């Protein structure tokens, strides 16, 4: 076996660029080294939304872009022995496997082996109210909320088993993001699942790659300050890992974006809290001794990673039906826009009070202050800068019933006739909200299993 293994990333979230995997796979093939490709598409709430879709349609509830993501690369990966792993099974891995099987048959790949990982879905099998609540989640009131989904973040072990069983595609639901990178490394190099130093390298590779382009220039580029080549075509990342735990991050060839010390630092710290304790189901990663080195164009080596034993407990994230959110927006522009916008904001809040709608509301003046502001509009109310040429007024209202927030949002619509001079462009919508709360559960209470069958068998 070769001493270097490549792990490519094809997606960093559900909604990512669907053409991103193509140059990654092209690069993996061209390099001629053993390799794997993974897709990370499952945010904290995504699985709950998927569970709601599955309730409405038993064949839904997996990554909606799955076929689009895999169609251009599945045959190349199969013929070049590049296994694909993904949490694209979301709330319905068996249906995702059927989708992939249909695609494989269409591509003339009846022998493609598809593994389905089960066990992450613990709804009904574990009583949540007996479990300790994960830090910082204790204050969320879920006393009267209805459970939608409960999934444990499972580690690399079942994914490794699937790869060792010869799977070409591993379909998982909730896994830890780094596990998707750790598993092919463990399967290839034969690392032990208690070799904490090696698993730390795998976890760091997974953490750096899990958000796709975020390590190659996405969410990094800042025109004139931090420029990157061709932001319309950012290359997705590839990790080069050696048997002894060397790690270099690079990216797909002939693409835009870049990999340098700055992109690595931003992503290394992304969603990290204590840098000495980045907890994954497989290892606790410590980056406090980490240093990095540019070793070529778009190539950065990561040194000094340390691992500590995996935690005894896994994180379970449960999602509950929440309240309702109503939003409405209108615009004003031109002379006296700021005064008209502020007056509109005050009138909207006065209307909600006048009608006695039981909602919690906020107004943003987009173009003055919005995303950095607070619910009471502290920033836009104290704004003393130049007159903005164009302002969008946004009302957001949360309440217990759909009707209450719909009525609140419709107050924005009413401004088309009742609003200030030159008010236009109304939009409004009402959406259900989801509450999440995380718990800790002993890992032995979350057994996992895999089922591996060919595309032809699944489709039969």
């Amino acid at each position, binding site marked *: 076996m070769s001493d270097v293994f490549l792990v490519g990333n094809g997606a960093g979230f559900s909604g990512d660029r669907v053409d991103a995997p193509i140059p990654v796979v092209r690069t993996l093939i061209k390099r001629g080294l053993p390799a794997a490709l993974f897709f990370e598409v499952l945010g904290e709430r995504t699985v709950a939304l998927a569970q709601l879709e599955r309730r409405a349609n038993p064949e839904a509830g997996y990554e909606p872009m799955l076929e689009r993501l895999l169609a251009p690369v599945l045959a190349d990966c199969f013929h070049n022995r590049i296994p694909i792993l993904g949490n694209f099974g979301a709330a319905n891995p068996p249906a995702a496997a059927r989708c992939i099987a249909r695609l494989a048959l269409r591509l003339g790949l009846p022998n493609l082996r598809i593994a389905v990982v089960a066990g992450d879905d613990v709804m009904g099998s574990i009583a949540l109210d007996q479990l300790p609540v994960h830090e910082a989640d204790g204050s969320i009131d879920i006393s009267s909320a209805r459970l939608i989904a409960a999934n444990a973040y499972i580690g690399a072990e079942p994914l490794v088993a699937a790869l060792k069983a010869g799977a070409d595609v591993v379909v998982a639901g909730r896994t830890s993001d780094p596990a998707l990178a750790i598993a092919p490394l463990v399967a290839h190099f034969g690392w032990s699942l208690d070799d904490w130093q090696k698993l730390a390298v795998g976890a760091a590779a997974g953490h750096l790659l899990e958000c796709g382009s975020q390590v190659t220039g996405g969410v990094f580029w800042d025109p004139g300050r931090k420029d990157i080549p061709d932001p319309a075509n950012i290359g997705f990342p590839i990790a080069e890992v050696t048997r002894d735990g060397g790690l270099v991050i690079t990216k797909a060839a002939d693409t835009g974006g870049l990999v340098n010390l700055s992109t690595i630092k931003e992503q290394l710290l992304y969603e990290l809290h204590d840098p000495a304790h980045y907890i994954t189901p497989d290892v606790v990663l410590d980056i406090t001794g980490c240093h990095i080195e540019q070793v070529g164009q778009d190539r950065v080596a990561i040194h000094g990673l340390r691992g500590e034993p995996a935690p005894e407990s896994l994180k379970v994230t449960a999602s509950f039906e929440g309240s309702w959110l109503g939003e409405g927006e209108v615009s004003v522009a031109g002379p006296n826009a700021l005064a008209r916008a502020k007056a509109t904001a005050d009138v909207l809040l006065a209307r909600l009070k006048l009608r006695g709608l039981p909602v919690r509301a906020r107004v943003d003046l987009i173009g003055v202050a919005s995303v950095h502001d607070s*619910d009471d509009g502290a920033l836009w109310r104290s704004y003393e800068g130049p007159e903005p040429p164009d302002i969008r007024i946004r009302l957001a209202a949360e309440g217990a019933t759909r009707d209450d927030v719909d009525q609140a949002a419709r107050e924005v619509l009413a401004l088309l006739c009742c609003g200030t001079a030159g008010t236009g462009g109304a939009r409004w919508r009402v959406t259900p909200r989801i509450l999440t709360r995380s718990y800790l559960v002993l890992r032995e209470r979350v057994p996992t299993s895999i089922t591996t069958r060919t595309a032809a068998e699944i489709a039969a």
Partner: protein
Amino acid sequence: MIEVPLYDLAHSRAGDKGNRANLSLIPYKPELYPILAEQVTEARVLALFAHRGATRCRRYDLPLLHAFNFVVDDVLEGGVNASLNLDGHGKTQSFRLLALTVQVPRHLVP
């Protein structure tokens, strides 16, 4: 010494977990690291987010990477599931941090 926004000296990325945000702060030049360590204190960053109800700020120093990680509690108005903010994840908050000003020797400003 001149007063400049952190934006002229460093870059940042924000992430979220529940009602807690983390903000990296990464100076472009290693020489700026001790200066930022002295001036960009937990208290100043907490004050920057006081209007949003932030309750606690913890700074983790990474001298080998020349980077800082600020973890700010209760800053996301309930987090993505409860916030009325357009940006419930708080991804844009990195640029609020970068608007904070510091005093630095003129020769260290690009």
